[in-house]
C-alpha cells in the first residue's frame, strides 16, 4: 500500500515561506547491519524545504522493496522560525547475505541537483527475530502498530538437562492489544523429545502481569513436559499463533482527519489477522554419565519404584500364570524398556503386554507402566523365577539406582491333561509304539537272593575257580617228576646215541692214523654196539646179536640194514685179532660204519 503522509499545518498555510535555505539532502537507514528476513527502513530527507522535485531513487540492488517511496512532509515552528522537510522512505528487505551499497538518490531543488551519499548495508545470516510473514506493507504497518504489544514467549524451567530428564516448556502470549481471537496454527514439532501435555488448555485465560513496567494480559497457551530422547543440542521449533487483532486502519488518502484522530476511538476499526511466532529454543541435553552405567539400565530417568507379583503361586502344567511388573514414579515412563527377566526354560515366556497410566503431578509427569508377562509352565516341578533388576537414573541424586525384584518360586503340578504336553523328539514310529502297552509282570519260579550277595566272589566260586588251576599245576609237577625217574636214561641215551657214536668214530679215526689196528677196530665196534644199545634203550651188557636184530627189525629197519650191521660188527671183531691188514681195509670199515649209523638214524622209528 502506498502511503503518502502529508502533514499540512494549518498555520503554515498562512505563512509565506520566507526562508530560502540551501537544501540538505541526506539518506539514512535505521541500521546498517541487518539479518536476513529483517526489514530495513531507508529514508531520504530533504531538509529546509518541502518543495523538492523530480526525486529519483537509486536502484536497490539485492533488496526487495516492500513499501515506498512514502512521501512525508514535515514542518516545524521553533521560536518563530519555520523549518520544513520532505522525506521519502522505503521499507526494504534483503534478498541475500553480504555487503550491499545503496546508491545515491537525487532531487532537484532550487535549480540545483542534490545527491545523497551512498550507504553500505551489511546483511548477515539468520534472524533471531521472528520475521514478519508475507510482509506486505499493510502487515508491516499493523506489525508496527502491534509491535511489542502482542508477542509470544516461550520459557523452559531449565535449559540444560540430562537425556531423559523432564523439561517443562511453557508458551505464553503477552497482550496489550485488543485481541479478538487467537488460534494456534502451527504447533512446534518436538523432534527428539517425548512430549506430554501438562495442561490441556481449553480456554485461554488471561491474567494481568507487568513486564518492563508495562501491564500485559498474559495467558498460557501451552504447557508441555518434554523428555529428550537423545543428547546434544536440540532445538524446539517456534510456535505460530494467528491472532485476530482489532486495529485502526489508516486510509491512503490524505484525509487529514485520519492524521489527527489517529486514535482507536476515531479510527477505523478493523479485524486484522496477525501471526505471532515464538523464538526457537535451544536446549542442551547432556548424555547420561557413563560411570556406573549398569547393564540392566534401560533408559529410565526419573524416580521410580517397582512392584512385582505373580497372580498365583501354584499352577498346573500348561496352565498360564502372569508375572506383573509395575514401575511407577516420575520420569520418562513411556520410554521405559521392559526389564529383562530370565525365566527357566521350562516356562514358556511371551512378550510382555504393556499398559501405561500417565498422570500429572503438578508440573511433573508421573504414573505407572505395567509389564505383564504371560508364563506357561510346560513341565512339573518347582520353577524358580530369579530376581531381576530394574535400573533408573536418579536425576536428583545424579546416579543410577537399581531396584531388585523378589525371587518367585512357582510350584507346578502335573496337569490333568498330560496328553497335551509336548512329547519331545519322537518319530512317528515311536509314537505308534507309545500306544502299545508294556509287557506283563513275571511270575512263577523266581530265584531271590539277598542284596549284594552273589555267586561271584563267594567261597564256592573261588573253590571252583582255583581248583582246576591247582590241579593243573599238580599234574604238571607230577608228570615232570615221573619222567625224570622213568624216562631219563633211555630218553637221554636215545637222543644222544648218534652223538656218542660220532665221538667214538672220531677216536677210531685217530687210531687209524696212528696205525693202531686193534684199537681202531675196538673203537668202531663199540661205536656201533653202543649206538644200537642207546637207540634201543637196552643196556649194552644185555644186548646180544639176536636180541639186537629182533628189536631193530621191530623198530622198522629192513632186514638188509640189520644184516649189514651185524656183518660189519662181526668183521670188526674178526679183524681185531686177525693178521695185520692194510689201511685201505680199515678206511673202508670206517666209512661203512659211518654210513650205517646215519642209515639207522634215518630209518629207525
Amino acid at each position: 500500500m502506498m502511503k503518502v503522509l502529508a502533514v499540512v499545518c494549518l498555520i503554515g498555510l498562512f505563512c509565506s515561506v520566507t526562508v530560502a535555505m540551501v537544501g540538505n539532502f541526506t539518506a539514512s537507514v535505521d541500521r546498517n547491519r541487518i539479518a536476513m528476513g529483517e526489514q530495513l527502513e531507508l529514508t531520504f530527507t530533504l531538509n529546509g524545504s518541502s518543495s523538492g522535485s523530480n526525486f529519483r531513487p537509486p536502484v536497490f540492488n539485492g533488496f526487495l522493496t516492500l513499501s515506498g517511496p512514502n512521501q512525508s512532509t514535515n514542518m516545524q515552528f521553533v521560536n518563530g522560525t519555520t523549518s520544513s522537510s520532505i522525506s521519502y522512505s522505503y521499507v526494504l528487505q534483503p534478498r541475500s547475505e553480504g555487503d550491499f551499497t545503496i546508491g545515491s538518490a537525487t532531487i532537484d531543488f532550487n535549480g540545483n541537483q542534490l545527491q545523497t551519499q551512498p550507504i553500505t548495508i551489511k546483511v548477515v545470516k539468520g534472524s533471531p527475530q521472528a520475521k514478519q510473514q508475507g510482509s506486505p506493507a499493510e502487515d508491516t504497518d499493523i506489525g508496527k502498530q502491534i509491535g511489542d504489544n502482542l508477542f509470544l514467549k516461550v520459557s523452559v524451567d531449565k535449559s540444560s538437562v540430562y537425556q531423559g530428564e523432564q523439561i517443562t516448556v511453557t508458551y505464553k502470549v503477552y497482550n496489550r492489544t485488543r485481541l479478538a481471537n487467537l488460534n494456534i496454527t502451527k504447533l512446534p514439532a518436538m523432534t527428539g523429545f517425548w512430549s506430554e501435555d501438562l495442561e490441556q488448555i481449553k480456554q485461554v485465560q488471561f491474567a494481568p502481569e507487568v513486564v518492563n513496567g508495562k501491564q500485559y494480559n498474559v495467558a498460557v497457551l501451552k504447557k508441555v513436559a518434554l523428555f529428550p530422547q537423545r543428547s546434544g543440542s536440540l532445538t524446539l521449533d517456534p510456535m505460530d499463533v494467528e491472532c485476530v487483532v482489532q486495529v485502526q486502519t489508516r486510509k491512503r488518502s490524505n484525509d487529514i482527519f485520519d492524521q489527527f484522530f489517529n486514535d482507536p476511538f476515531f479510527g477505523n476499526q478493523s479485524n486484522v489477522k496477525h501471526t505471532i511466532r515464538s523464538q526457537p529454543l535451544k536446549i542442551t541435553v547432556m548424555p547420561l554419565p557413563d560411570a556406573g552405567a549398569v547393564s540392566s539400565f534401560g533408559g529410565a530417568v526419573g524416580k521410580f519404584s517397582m512392584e512385582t507379583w505373580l497372580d498365583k503361586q501354584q499352577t498346573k502344567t500348561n496352565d498360564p500364570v502372569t508375572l506383573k511388573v509395575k514401575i511407577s514414579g516420575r520420569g520418562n515412563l513411556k520410554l521405559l524398556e521392559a526389564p529383562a527377566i530370565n525365566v527357566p526354560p521350562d516356562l514358556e515366556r511371551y512378550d510382555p503386554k504393556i499398559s501405561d497410566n500417565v498422570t500429572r503431578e503438578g508440573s511433573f509427569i508421573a504414573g505407572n507402566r505395567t509389564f505383564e508377562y504371560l508364563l506357561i509352565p510346560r513341565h512339573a516341578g518347582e520353577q524358580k523365577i530369579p530376581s531381576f533388576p530394574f535400573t533408573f537414573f536418579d536425576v536428583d541424586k545424579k546416579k543410577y539406582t537399581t531396584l531388585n525384584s523378589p525371587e518367585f518360586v512357582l510350584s507346578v503340578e502335573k496337569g490333568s491333561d498330560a496328553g497335551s504336553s509336548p512329547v519331545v523328539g519322537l518319530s512317528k514310529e515311536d509314537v505308534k509304539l507309545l500306544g502299545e502297552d508294556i509287557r506283563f509282570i513275571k511270575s512263577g519260579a523266581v530265584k531271590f537272593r539277598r542284596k549284594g550277595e552273589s555267586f561271584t566272589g563267594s567261597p564256592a566260586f573261588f573253590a571252583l575257580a582255583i581248583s582246576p588251576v591247582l590241579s593243573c599245576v599238580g599234574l604238571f609237577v607230577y608228570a615232570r617228576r615221573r619222567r625224570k625217574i622213568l624216562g631219563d636214561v633211555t630218553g637221554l641215551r636215545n637222543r644222544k646215541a648218534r652223538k656218542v657214536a660220532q665221538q667214538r668214530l672220531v677216536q677210531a679215526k685217530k687210531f687209524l692214523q696212528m696205525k693202531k689196528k686193534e684199537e681202531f677196530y675196538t673203537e668202531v665196534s663199540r661205536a656201533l654196539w653202543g649206538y644200537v644199545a642207546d637207540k634201543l634203550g637196552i643196556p649194552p651188557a644185555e644186548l646180544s646179536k639176536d636180541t639186537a636184530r629182533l628189536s631193530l627189525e621191530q623198530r622198522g629197519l629192513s632186514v638188509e640194514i640189520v644184516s649189514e650191521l651185524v656183518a660189519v660188527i662181526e668183521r670188526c671183531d674178526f679183524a681185531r685179532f686177525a693178521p695185520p691188514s692194510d689201511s685201505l681195509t680199515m678206511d673202508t670199515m670206517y666209512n661203512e660204519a659211518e654210513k650205517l649209523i646215519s642209515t639207522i638214524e634215518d630209518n629207525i622209528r
Partner: protein
Amino acid sequence: MSYLRILIILFFVQVSYAQEVSLQFEQANQVYRNGDVQKAAGMYEEILKNGYESPALYYNLGNAHFKLNNIPSAILNYERAKRLAPHDDDVSYNLRLANLRVIDKIEPIPQLFFTEWWQSIMNLYSADGWSIVMIIALWCAAISFAILLMMRSMLIRKTSLILTAAAVVISVLSIVALRQREHQEQAQLNAIITAASVSVKSAPDEQSTDLFILHEGVKVELVDNVGNWLKIHLPDGKVGWLASASLEAI
C-alpha cells in the same frame, strides 16, 4: 563236623527264607493281577526292604510304577532289573517303552565298534553267569592239559594242546568280563533323575551357572561326588553337577 552241621542248618534257613520271599512275591503278583497296582507296588517294595532282590522283582515293580504313571521310578526299576539280567527281553522292551515317555532326548555319542562289540559280549551274562563260564572254561583247560600230559599219541596231544589254549583264552576273557560286570552291578555307576526338572550346575555349588535342564527319567552316569553333589555325565558327552537329592542311583 559241627561246622558242617551249622552250614547245613544255615543253608536250610536260607532256603526257607527264600521260600517265604517267593510266597510274598506271588501274593504281590496276585494283587497286581487283581488290579490294585498301588498295593502291589508296596508289596514289592516290602520284599526289597527285606533285603532280597531279583530281576523279576525289579521288573514287576517297574511295571507297577509304569501303570501308576510314575515313569522315573519305572525306569529306575527296569534299569535295576537290567543290571541283574542284562539280556532279559521283557525288561529291555518295557524299559524302551518307558524311556519314550522321558522328555529329554539325548543322542549318545557313537562308540567305537570294538567297544560296542565288547559291551554286547560283556552283557551276554550277568557277573554270576560269567563266573560259571569262567569256571567251566578253567575246568576244560585243566582236563585237556591233563590229557596233553598223559597221552603219548601225537594227534591226541596236538588236539588237547589247542583245546587247552582255547579254554585258557576263554577263561581269561570271562575273567575280564566278569570283573567289569561285577563292577557294573555292585558299584552305583548310573542314576535316574527323579526330580521333575533340575538344572544341572557347572560346579557343586547352588550359586554356580545353570548349564542345562534335565527332566525326570533321564539316565545319567555318575562320575564323581563332592559332599551332597554328584558329577554326572550324559551319553551325549555333557558333564555337570547335580544335588544328590534329585536323582537315585540304579
